[in-house]
């Protein structure tokens, strides 16, 4: 966790009501410089509302937001100039050409000198892969390309903080990979807050993950630590060909009586399947292999459930639901 004084962004008791509905409920967040923070949560959890308040689009119902010790709403304009924001599904001006749009954004963000504009455009074109679309109307671009133009918009002034709201939603796998690689590249130097409901994305790109559900923070930890917590309840899946269920169960139980072995649904006919939970969270796969090796049974599957983050996510968000 980050200390409040060192935090680049510090959010205290942030709350937002839409009439009577509480979309964000007393959220506390702090983001350290250089950190890539993943804001995770199911649809409608309050991620977008939180980011909209953070970027100055929505006024919070209550709570405090400070960025580099500047306070909202007093210093909102200054804070906006420190941030680059890519809203969900990159809403842009559809009737403009990409080049004209970038010129407009550059001017609004204070890059007036044409030479400086061109220098910045060259960097952004390389980084976001815009070279072939600069003269095209935004309306004719695919979703992935629009997203890239949105990223170029967000990074126009090379801001210290980037806020990306579901940057890969609705993209195909190739486009997702491209956008992720761009985020990782930028993340080497910048502080990034990225919201997503895709867990693998958060796992692949973020240093720290905050899980939000129903407007509340339900988990806030480093990605590695969250994954470890998930692994504590890891399950080994075993599928055997040869024995009947009772014989196999007896043999496995003879290994260590403390093992929690449960029969599972067989994926194919002629297989017996088990889910094994080691009590002390150790890896029991080698023990199982050595034990089975003594018989003439065939191991068809022996694997640890690896989607630890998904599990934590489901636990936290279902409990609340």
């Amino acid at each position, binding site marked *: 966790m980050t200390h409040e004084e060192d935090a680049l962004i510090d959010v205290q008791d942030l709350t937002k009501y839409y009439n009577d509905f509480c979309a964000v409920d007393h959220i506390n967040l702090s983001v350290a410089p250089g950190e890539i923070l993943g804001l995770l949560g199911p649809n409608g959890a309050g991620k977008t509302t939180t980011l*909209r308040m953070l*970027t*100055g*689009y*929505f*006024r919070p119902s209550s709570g405090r937001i400070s960025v580099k010790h500047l306070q909202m709403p007093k210093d909102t*304009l*200054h804070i*906006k*100039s420190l*941030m680059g*924001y890519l*809203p969900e*599904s*990159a*809403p*842009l*001006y*559809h*009737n*403009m050409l990409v080049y004209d749009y970038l010129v*407009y*954004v550059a*001017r*609004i*963000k*204070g890059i*007036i000198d044409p030479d400086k504009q061109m220098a910045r455009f060259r960097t952004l074109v390389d980084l976001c892969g815009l070279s072939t679309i600069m003269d095209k109307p935004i309306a004719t671009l695919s979703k992935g390309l629009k997203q890239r133009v*949105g990223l170029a*918009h967000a990074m126009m002034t090379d801001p210290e903080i980037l806020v990306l709201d579901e940057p890969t939603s609705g993209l195909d796998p190739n486009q997702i990979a491209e956008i992720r690689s761009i985020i990782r590249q930028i993340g080497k130097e910048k502080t990034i807050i990225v919201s997503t409901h895709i867990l693998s994305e958060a796992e692949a790109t973020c240093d720290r993950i905050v899980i939000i559900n129903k407007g509340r923070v339900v988990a806030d930890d480093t990605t590695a630590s969250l994954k470890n917590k998930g692994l504590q309840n890891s399950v080994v899946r075993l599928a055997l060909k040869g024995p009947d269920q009772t014989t196999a169960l007896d043999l496995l139980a003879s290994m260590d009586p403390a093992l929690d072995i449960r029969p599972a649904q067989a994926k194919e006919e002629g297989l017996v399947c088990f889910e094994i939970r080691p009590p002390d969270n150790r890896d029991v796969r080698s023990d199982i292999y050595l034990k089975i090796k003594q018989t003439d049974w065939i191991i068809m599957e022996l694997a640890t459930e690896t989607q630890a983050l998904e599990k934590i996510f489901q636990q936290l968000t279902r409990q609340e639901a």
Partner: protein
Amino acid sequence: MSQIKHIAVKEFKDYFISPIAYIVIALFLIVTGWFFFSTFFIYSRADMRDFFSLLPIVFSFFIPAITMRLFAEERNVGSYETLLTMPVSFTDIALGKFFAATLFSAAMLLPTLAYPVFISFIGDVDPGPVAGGYLGALFLAAAYCAMGLFASALTRNQIIAFIIGCALCFTLTIINRMLFFMPPKIVAVVEYFGASSHFTNFSKGILDTRDIIYFISLVCIFMFSTYLVMQEKN
């Protein structure tokens, strides 16, 4: 200040990127041209009084058509979020859009400058009322643009924005002709609220500060209302 300029320039250019500008300008010229010249030769008067007298009513339909997209479209497409999270204030956005719409209205009026030139070939045109009329037309357009902008800020549906805008502008245009139905005590007050009487003074070549203040007040009231709506919606 520079932010207002950038937004105004972008919005003004936007009109000409889409066919809207050309359609609106062409329609405006056909409507005003037809109504003006259809009776022009009957009266044998080398002036533009008839042109200016129908301008308020024409503006009350054309200007809401110009302003209806300014906020409603941005809200609908979602680009309003992109715009508001850039380092610009509500005031910059509202004023930028207002100046763009007013400038476009001026551009719409520009081709009609040919009328006094043509008329001057067939008779002596008094330049005073013509110049006053155009100045008044700019004030009138600015006031109606502020009202249209306010209507556009209220909703994300352009058609609703257009109808509200028309209703506001039309009310101020015809209120002078409704005085007959008013109680005598409030006639003077209601008459002051009507835009037509103030505009008529301009088109007679009279520059009265009361008329100028009236139009500037309208702009200020509706721009401030727009600002309040923007704040309220976020």
